[in-house]
C-alpha cells in the first residue's frame, strides 16, 4: 500500500458539535497529525454538500484514508463508507471518530476539556486509519422467508404484507387465538369501527393465506444464525418445529396494567379498568352496574349528598354517572412514560356512553389531555360539546374514591369536588410483556429500562434493530394505537422485504484470519467460537464445511460466511496466530499508543 494520505472531515452538526467544541481548533490540530494531508470542517458532513466535499477531497488531494469526526458509526458509518466508495476509495479505509454522541452532547458545559478530549479521539482515529487495510465484503444468501413473532394487529399486518409480496411467513402467536389486545376492545377511535370485526378480518386473512403458516399456542424457543439465515425453533406444547428464515419481525405487543391496589380496584366492583369498560360497553353496561350494586347491597348515593370535606356539591344525575381517572399508574416514578393511547380511549368511551344515553354524566379526571392532530382533537371537542366534563388534577393531589363517589381537587376552581357516581373507570398504561427480556436475549436485541424493545435509531432506523435482519413494530416497541401499529407494521414488512427480495446480502469482512505458520493446531479457538466458524483441519481440506477426521498437522481455518467478527478467538490464541480483520492488534495498539502520546510527552 502506498503511504497513507489521510483526510479529516469535522462536522459541525449544526450547533450540536460546533456549539460545544472548538471546531476551528480541531481543524488546526488535525493538520498537525502524522499522515494528515487535508482537514476540513462541514456544517453537516452527512448532507449532500458534505459528502460531495469528501469526494472532492479524495480526488483533489489523492486521499487514501478518510476520517470523519461527527455523530456515531452506529448510524452513519454505512453512509460515509458508500461516499468513499463513490470516489473510488475502498470503504474499509474509512474511520469514524465519535465527537457528538460521546463528546459534545455529554460535556455541554466544558468547552475546553471537551475539545481536548476530541483532539485525543481524533489522534487515536487517525492512528488507526493509517493502519486500515482495504477489504471486500462477503456475500451470503438470504432465505426468502420471515418469522413474525406475535399475531396482534401489528404482527398480522406485517405478516399479510410480506405474504402478499410473495414471501413465506411463519407467524407465531402464544395465545390460543390470534388478534392480540384488540380482541378485548369494543370500538376503535377515531372511526368507531367494531374492533372485533376489524381484527377478525385480518385473522381470517392470515389463516387463509397460502404463504402464511400460523402457529398458535406456540412460542419461539431458539434463534441462531445471522442476517439472511436465522435458524428458528418454535415450540407448540410438546411439539417442536425448526425452520430457516431470512428476517424476523418482533410484534409481541404489550399489555394493560391491572391497577391492583389503586383506587380500591379489585375490592370495589364499581371500580374497573378501561379494558373492562370496553367489555361492558359491548354488553348493556347500565344493567350490569345496577346488578353489581344490588349484589353488594349498595345504595345509589342520594341527591344532594354532602361530603364533609367537599366544598362544592354536584347535583346527582338521575341517570348513570361515570368517572374516568387518567394516568393511573402512569407518568409516576415506576412508569415515568406516557402510554399515549389512554386519553383517546377515554374520549372515545365517554362519547360511546353519551351516545347510548345522552343524559349520562361522564367526568374525565386528567393530568394533561393528549389528543394529537386535527381528528383526535376534534373528538375531544365533540366530547366537551356533548357535555363530558374534563377536570384537571395534579399528581400531588390525586383523586380519591370513597363511599360511591370520587373526590378531586379541581385545579381551575381551586375547590375539592365530590362526584357521586355509579362507575369509576381507571385508565392505566400499556406495559411491556413480562418476558420481553427473554426474547430479547434470544434475538440479541436490546430492551429499554421499561422492557420495551429498543430500535437502532429513533429517527433514522425506527423500525430496525441494530442487529441486521431483525425489525420491530407495534406496542412491543412503545404504546401505539391501531393506526400507528399498522403503519409501523407496513414499514417493518417493507424493511424486511428489501432484504428478502435481494436474495443475497453483503456482510462485513470483519472476520478472523489464521496465520498457519504460527498456528500449532491446539484447537482453543474452535472451543471458544460461538459460531463454529473456526475449525481445525488439514491445510489441504476444502474450506467449506466442518472439520476433517482429525490427525496431526491440522491448522485452524476460518469459515468466512459463519464468522461474526467478535474476536474472542484472536484475543485468546496462545500463539497470537489469529488476526481480527479491521480490528487488528496493530490497529488497536496504535489507538492506545496514540492516546498515550500526550501523557508521555
Amino acid at each position, binding site marked *: 500500500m502506498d503511504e497513507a494520505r489521510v483526510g479529516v472531515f469535522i462536522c459541525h452538526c449544526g450547533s450540536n458539535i460546533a456549539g460545544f467544541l472548538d471546531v476551528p481548533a480541531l481543524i488546526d490540530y488535525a493538520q498537525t497529525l502524522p499522515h494528515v494531508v487535508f482537514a476540513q470542517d462541514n456544517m453537516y458532513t452527512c448532507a449532500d454538500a458534505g459528502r460531495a466535499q469528501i469526494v472532492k477531497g479524495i480526488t483533489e488531494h489523492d486521499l487514501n484514508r478518510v476520517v470523519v469526526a461527527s455523530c*456515531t*458509526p*452506529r448510524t452513519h458509518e454505512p453512509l460515509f463508507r458508500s461516499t468513499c466508495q463513490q470516489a473510488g476509495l475502498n470503504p474499509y479505509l474509512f474511520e469514524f471518530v*465519535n465527537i457528538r*454522541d*460521546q*463528546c459534545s*452532547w*455529554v*460535556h*455541554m458545559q*466544558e468547552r475546553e*476539556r*471537551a475539545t*481536548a*478530549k476530541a483532539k*485525543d*479521539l481524533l489522534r*487515536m482515529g487517525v492512528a488507526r486509519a493509517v493502519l486500515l487495510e482495504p477489504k471486500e465484503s462477503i456475500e451470503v444468501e438470504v432465505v426468502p422467508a420471515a418469522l413474525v413473532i406475535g399475531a396482534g394487529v401489528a404482527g398480522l399486518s406485517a405478516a399479510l404484507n410480506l405474504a402478499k409480496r410473495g414471501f413465506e411467513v411463519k407467524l407465531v402467536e402464544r395465545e390460543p387465538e390470534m388478534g392480540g389486545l384488540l380482541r378485548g376492545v369494543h370500538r376503535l377511535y377515531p372511526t368507531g369501527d367494531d374492533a372485533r370485526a376489524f381484527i377478525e378480518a385480518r385473522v381470517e386473512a392470515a389463516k387463509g393465506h397460502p404463504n402464511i403458516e400460523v402457529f398458535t399456542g406456540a412460542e419461539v424457543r431458539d434463534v441462531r444464525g445471522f442476517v439472511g439465515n436465522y435458524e428458528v425453533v418454535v415450540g407448540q406444547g410438546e411439539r417442536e418445529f425448526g425452520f430457516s428464515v431470512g428476517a424476523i419481525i418482533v410484534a409481541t405487543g404489550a399489555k394493560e396494567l391491572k391497577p391492583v391496589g389503586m383506587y380500591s380496584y379489585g375490592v370495589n366492583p364499581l371500580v374497573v379498568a378501561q379494558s373492562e369498560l370496553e367489555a361492558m360497553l359491548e354488553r348493556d353496561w347500565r344493567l350490569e352496574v345496577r346488578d353489581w350494586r344490588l349484589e353488594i347491597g349498595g345504595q345509589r348515593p342520594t341527591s344532594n349528598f354532602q361530603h364533609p370535606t367537599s366544598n362544592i356539591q354536584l347535583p346527582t344525575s338521575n341517570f348513570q354517572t361515570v368517572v374516568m381517572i387518567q394516568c393511573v399508574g402512569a407518568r409516576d416514578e415506576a412508569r415515568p412514560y406516557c402510554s399515549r393511547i389512554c386519553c383517546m380511549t377515554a374520549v372515545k368511551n365517554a362519547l360511546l356512553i353519551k351516545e347510548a344515553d345522552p343524559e349520562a354524566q361522564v367526568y374525565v379526571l386528567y393530568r394533561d389531555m393528549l389528543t394529537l392532530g386535527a381528528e383526535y382533537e376534534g373528538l375531544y371537542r365533540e366530547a366537551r360539546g356533548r357535555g363530558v366534563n374534563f377536570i384537571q388534577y395534579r399528581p400531588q393531589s390525586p383523586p380519591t374514591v370513597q363511599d360511591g363517589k370520587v373526590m378531586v381537587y379541581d385545579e381551575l376552581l381551586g375547590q375539592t369536588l365530590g362526584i357521586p357516581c355509579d362507575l369509576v373507570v381507571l385508565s392505566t398504561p400499556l406495559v411491556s410483556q413480562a418476558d420481553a427480556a427473554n426474547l*430479547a*436475549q434470544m434475538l*440479541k436485541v*436490546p*430492551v429499554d*429500562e421499561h422492557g420495551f424493545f*429498543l430500535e437502532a435509531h*429513533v429517527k433514522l432506523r425506527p423500525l430496525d434493530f*441494530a442487529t441486521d435482519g431483525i425489525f420491530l413494530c407495534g406496542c412491543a416497541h412503545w404504546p401505539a394505537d391501531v393506526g400507528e401499529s399498522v403503519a409501523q407494521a407496513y414499514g417493518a414488512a417493507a424493511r424486511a422485504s428489501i432484504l428478502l427480495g435481494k436474495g443475497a446480502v453483503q456482510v462485513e469482512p*470483519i472476520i478472523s484470519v489464521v496465520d498457519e505458520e504460527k498456528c500449532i493446531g*491446539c484447537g*482453543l479457538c474452535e*472451543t*471458544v467460537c*460461538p*459460531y463454529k466458524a473456526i475449525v481445525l483441519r488439514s491445510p489441504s481440506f476444502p474450506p467449506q464445511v466442518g472439520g476433517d477426521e482429525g490427525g496431526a498437522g491440522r491448522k485452524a481455518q476460518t469459515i468466512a460466511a459463519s464468522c*461474526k*467478527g*467478535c*474476536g*474472542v478467538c*484472536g*484475543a*485468546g*490464541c*496462545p*500463539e*497470537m496466530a489469529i488476526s*481480527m480483520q479491521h*480490528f487488528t*492488534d496493530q490497529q*488497536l*495498539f496504535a*489507538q*492506545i*499508543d496514540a*492516546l*498515550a502520546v*500526550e*501523557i*508521555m510527552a
Partner: protein
Amino acid sequence: MTETVEFEPRILGFLCNWCSYAGADLAGVSRFQYPPTLRVIRVMCSGRVDPAFVLRAFSRGIDGVMILGCHPGDCHYATGNYYARNRVKVLKRLLELAGVNPDRLVLDWVSAGEGKRFATLVHDFTERIKALGPFGLAQDREELQERLAAARRVVESEQIRWLVGREREMIEGGDVYGQAVSQETFDALLESSVVAEYLRSRLLLLTAGRPLSVREMASEVGMAPRLVLPHVVALEQAGLIAMVGIEGNSPKYRS
C-alpha cells in the same frame, strides 16, 4: 490535596459495539453529562480485548482502563463477555503482583438502553481514579515498566491463555478426561499458575542483561531465596536461563 483536585485522569475505555457503545451513544442522545475523562476504543465484543491491550495502556501511563460489555447472557456473540470476565480476573491478579492497584481496571456491563448507567459508571470510575491519583508517579518508572513487561509475558504465555480459554469448558464440561472441575479447584490452579508464571517472567527479564545469583534475584523480587530457587531450576531445565559463572559460592544465571 490540591494536587489531587487538579488531577485530570486519562481513562481508556474498550466498549463493545452492540451494548455498551450503544449505551454510551444513548447517554449522548439523552444529554446525560459525565466528566470528559474517558477515551473510547470501539471493539466488536468485550471478548476482543486481549489482556495485552490493557497492560500496554498501563505501560504507557494511562491512569485507568474500563472494559464495558453486554450484560451476562445478553452478549451479541453469546459468550464473548464471559471470556472478558475470565481475562479480567487474571489481569487484576497480575496488576496486583506487579504492584499496580487492580482498582485501576474495571469490567462492567452496560446495555444499549442504559445511557444513565453508562454516565454513572464513567463518573464513579473517574472519582475512583482521582482518589487513587496519577498512575505510576510514586513508583520507580523503570521498575514498574519491567513488572508490567513481566505481566505481559504472562498474559501472552501459552499456559495462561490456554487456561483462561478453557475455564468455561472445564467447569461446565469437564477436563480432557471428562472430569468436571469445580470453580474452586480451577481458581486455585489458575492462581498458582499465574503467580508462578509471573515470577518466572520477572526472573527472565531480570537476568536478561546481567547475570544474577539466586540470592540477588530473590532480593529483587522481594522473596525468600528458597522460594525462588525451584523456579530458577525450572527455567534452567526448560533451557530459558543458563548458569554463566560462579561468584564466591553462588552460581550466576543469565537468560
